């Protein structure tokens, strides 16, 4: 290995070395995420296409009422907060969820950093926080879904809108596809978060029993870290599309 020629050793793409200075496992994770990004892009494009084939609500936000005739304004739909029934808190709860998820990305960075220092205790601690962050996010999503499914009794329904809450084929808030897309895309993302929590837990367990220490490196933490950051990043886009635009 050491006796490669001057010409070749200058060329990291010349073979015999890992040109990106990354193990095959990490590269695989990157390529998987690239492909998963295309899945989410397809879903968000689907959202955009269906969203803009429906008319938007024309008028001021005070006059807004739920109707099948136009796409709802998201901040009028997602305005609930646990234990604060009847108070109009637009996007506060989902904002909190987003904050928790992004915070769990921070703790994941700290876990990766601890792994690079071979600090077993640090990895355990920060992985645990990351898992808790993920579970909290999933819990919040469960509440958000329940609220959405049961329906808002305080909401301002347009005439003829008698159905309360939402399911995959009809909903009180607007055209059926509004709820269908909400369930599908946040559900698909939630499934990714759930998978991430499971992966994080496996790695956490391996760190706790000392398996990772015995292998001499904490690269597995970095790999699940990549996945976790990706899931967070996707949420930023989902959040933007569903709640802000």
């Amino acid at each position, binding site marked *: *290995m*050491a*006796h*490669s*020629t*001057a*010409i*070749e*050793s200058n*060329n*990291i*793409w*010349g*073979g*015999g*070395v*890992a*040109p*990106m*200075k*990354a*193990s*095959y*496992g990490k*590269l*695989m994770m990157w*390529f*998987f995420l*690239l*492909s*998963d*990004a*295309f*899945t989410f*892009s*397809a*879903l968000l494009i*689907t959202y955009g*296409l*269906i969203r803009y*084939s*429906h008319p938007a609500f024309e008028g001021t936000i005070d006059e807004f009422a739920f109707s099948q005739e136009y796409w709802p304004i998201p901040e009028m739909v997602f305005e609930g907060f646990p234990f604060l029934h009847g108070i109009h808190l637009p996007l506060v709860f989902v904002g909190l969820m987003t904050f928790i998820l992004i915070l769990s990305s921070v703790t994941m960075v700290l876990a990766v950093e601890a792994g690079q220092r071979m600090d077993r205790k640090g990895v355990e601690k920060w992985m645990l926080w990351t898992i808790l962050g993920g579970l909290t996010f999933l819990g919040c999503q469960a509440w958000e879904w329940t609220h959405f499914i049961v329906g808002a009794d305080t909401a301002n329904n347009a005439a003829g809108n008698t159905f309360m809450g939402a*399911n*995959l*084929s009809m909903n009180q808030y607007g*055209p*059926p*596809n509004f709820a*269908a*897309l909400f369930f*599908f895309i946040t559900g*698909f993302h939630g499934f990714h978060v759930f998978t991430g929590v499971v992966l994080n837990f496996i790695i956490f367990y391996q760190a706790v029993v000392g398996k990772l220490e015995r*292998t*001499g490196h904490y690269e597995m933490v970095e790999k699940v870290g990549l996945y976790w950051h990706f899931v967070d990043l996707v949420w930023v886009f989902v959040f933007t599309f569903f709640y802000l635009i």
Partner: protein
Amino acid sequence: MSVADIQIEKDLHHDGHDDHHEQSFISKYIFSTDHKTIAKQFLITGIFWALIGGGLSVIFRLQLGFPDMELYWLKPLLGKWITAEGKIDSEFYLALVTMHGTIMVFFVLTAGLSGTFANFLIPLQIGARDMASGFMNMLSYWFFFVSGVIMFISFFLETGPASGGWTVYPPLSALPQAIQGSGAGMTMWLVSMVFFIASTLLGGINYITTIINMRTEGMSFTRLPLTVWALFLTAILGLLSFPVLVAAALLLVFDRSFGTSFYLSDIYIGGEALPHIGGSPILYQHLFWFLGHPEVYIVILPALGITSEIISTNSRKPIFGYRAMIGSMLAIGFLSFIVWAHHMFVTGLNPFLGSIFMFLTLIIAVPSAVKAFNYITTLWRGNIKFTTAMLFSIGLVSFFISGGLTGIFLGNSALDINLHDTYFVVAHFHLVMGSAAFFGMLAGVYHWFPKMFGRMMDERLGSIHFWLTFVGVYLVFFPLHYIGIAGFPRRYYSFTSFDAFQTFTDLNSFVSIAAALTFFAQFIFLFNFFYSIFAGRKASLNPWKSNTLEWTTPRLPGHGNWPGAIPKVFRWAYDYSKPGAKDDFIPQTVPLSETPESNLPNEVEEAKAEAKK
């Protein structure tokens, strides 16, 4: 420093590959993690599916060519799908067409072609002991296997297999009321495809990573054989396009089973309005063809790579325009993502958008022509060895040109109004991507058979197989152009009730006879293949006098490929008939310092640097 890193990597992950302990039958042949065994599994499964897919086409060609024929003799095979009048059931006809397309495109020409040759050739040609992850590679095959089992079972459903066309457009595919095949058959189709996509992604991620990380010393990207380049780009195309099919398929699953309306709106069945509103079937077509168009390049690129290798070897000449070949594949790969709407010119697409997609589509003619010209110029004044593999490669070039030319007509958004969904389209893609890719696959099998099984296939039977198939393919698909221009729509069960088409009855019968003969000619190959595995002439180490690394392995390479150290690479793969050299080929493992008589001026310096160490 990075050298040390990779060394650690190898110690970490590849300890298992070097020890040659005896394996049980199951871990050696069934759940094997050896890339060569997995390649053979893909190949044999691919051949199985090719037989089924081809057999289906012969059955529906009977209906098209001989609409009055009594088919009672097919009753033992097709059962209730033969009606009381001895005809093929008209809905089952659609299922036949659908399954023929699905099987051929996905199971044979994607898994059978890429799966076989990416697995077999990548580690052997880049100088690696195995794929990056042998386990994922094994999973990739078994996901494909499960996907095949599910698709196979769907043939035996009461309501028949999926029958909405291989593109499974909603609303036809979304509503069981629309057609029988959109019931359980369609559900199984979707489940099967989910497994198939998982298989493709597992394989693709592995291929890409292996090529990036595990090339042997000296094997730079500009020394890679074109097969590896082609398989690399194929894997990238699959990695970026199949996930979009995942999205499309999942949305379709929800529309079918969970009451959503992503693709459905304003549908009346029997005068009754369905509750679905607000969706768009065109959305599905966009998502589908974002996969579907790259998919045709996923099918053809490996075949083109194999052809590059075989034509160069058997012309005893360097491939003409090596870098242009890479560049054209890159261009084809890139363009394949931005032309999908040429499948949708007549869906009500904005004509201005149509003209943009037409322009982008026609640009693909440029890199494709580069490839065709480079094949011809490689052959030009070569010392051509007409091995069977070479014959099939030349056949591929022929199909690629004659099928590609009609692509220029079809890419035109105005002409497409006339030609879309006619047999002209069928003729076009069966030549340019179907038969061409199929010939690439056969060429690859004939060429690498000695490395796969350590024995030679029979060249005489090979030649007979080639000429029957080559002539047969043209006899089938050339007349279809005329039938298409005359306006025959594809996928129709019967044309006998249209006066305008009466004059074409003979031509249709002719095509059907040719199709059946071509299909039966494949049994020559099957005999040759299986007979040679067990009783073929034993192969020499380098039967085609080829330069690439796989021919430096033992006759039957074990797990780990090279018994000693992995060979180093000192030159590109195409030093054939180099002026001054004593042989007409110089393998990639021969250092430049050992061949002073044939080094080019720019290689003299390199040779000196090499000799110093």
